[in-house]
């Protein structure tokens, strides 16, 4: 059997690859959410407050 399309995966292999890709995607999405939540937790409630520093006056 000759073929110039390179490596040909079987249907079962394609299915496994799809499931692996989906799992990697879910893990990455979970990590994005986790890092976001941890960042908010680490910064504390102060992150929601507007800056209390006086505004810089621009002299014309």
């Amino acid at each position, binding site marked *: 059997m000759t073929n110039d*399309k390179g490596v040909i*995966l079987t249907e079962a292999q394609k299915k496994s690859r799809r*499931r*692996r890709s989906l799992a990697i995607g879910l893990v990455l999405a979970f990590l994005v959410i*986790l890092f976001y939540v*941890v960042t908010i937790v680490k910064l504390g409630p102060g992150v929601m407050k507007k800056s209390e520093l006086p505004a810089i006056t621009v002299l014309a």
Partner: protein
Amino acid sequence: MSLISEERTVRADNLSGFAGVEDYWALLKPRVMSLVIFTALVGIVRAPGDIHPVIGFVALLCIAVGAGAAGALNMWWDADIDARMDRTRTRPIPAGRVEPGEAMVFGLLLSGASVLMLGLLVGVLAGALLAFTIFFYAVIYSMWLKRATPQNIVIGGAAGALPPIIGWAAVTGNVTLEPLLLFTLIFVWTPPHFWALALLKKRDYERAGIPMLPNVAGDDETRRQILLYSLVLAPVGVAPFALGMTGWLYGAISIALGAFFLLFAWQVYRKREGEAAERACKHLFAYSILYLFLLFAVLLGEGMVR
């Protein structure tokens, strides 16, 4: 061109492309991981001071993933041994579903990620302890001790005993007597637990060429050592109460559980022939898991109502 393509097409059937998500999950040794999560949680809950629930969750997640990564590295290194043992020959690498190199990269990636995350998001000491645990299990135990000495699981047991210390360090940033006692408890528990299994799986270990104590020193000596370690384990199990770190509930339960442990170990020591001997080993192995689980469950319960 056609020759090369044909070769590549043929090779496609032999690729490990069938590896499913469950195979990578199996590389993490989920049953070991669940014990690690449980004991680390006890370390976190019993540690004085507060930890934000999200940070506590991150700590547990990192410890679990780090333990899983060490498991994957162990399976990569021991694939030749696993292929010769009935208990392990269906694991993803000996079964041909995952390439050894893939398991190694998987283990290294997860090791690095879990240590970095724990160190940066929770605490440097906890991250360093996790890194040491992975190194100890993958390198000191798997690559060196396991094939070199019958004391392999005695010294290697330190890796399995570290999670409560990591959990404690994640909260407090230091290590005191109580987490060291929890470490000692798991450390002393490991030999009788594993040697009960080693007596049952002696032929398996012999076929794989692993110098477990029954294969090197014989069954009688193994039974003697099981009894000796159990004599040490029973008081170590009571020590957290004796030193005033726990309440009466733990004290009473640890005394009762320790007495039963000694009873099961005595049965293993006494019954040396036939089915009765095999049954005694099975009972001790099963009871040893229950023993550790119950002790840590009471520690967890007392820590939560404190």
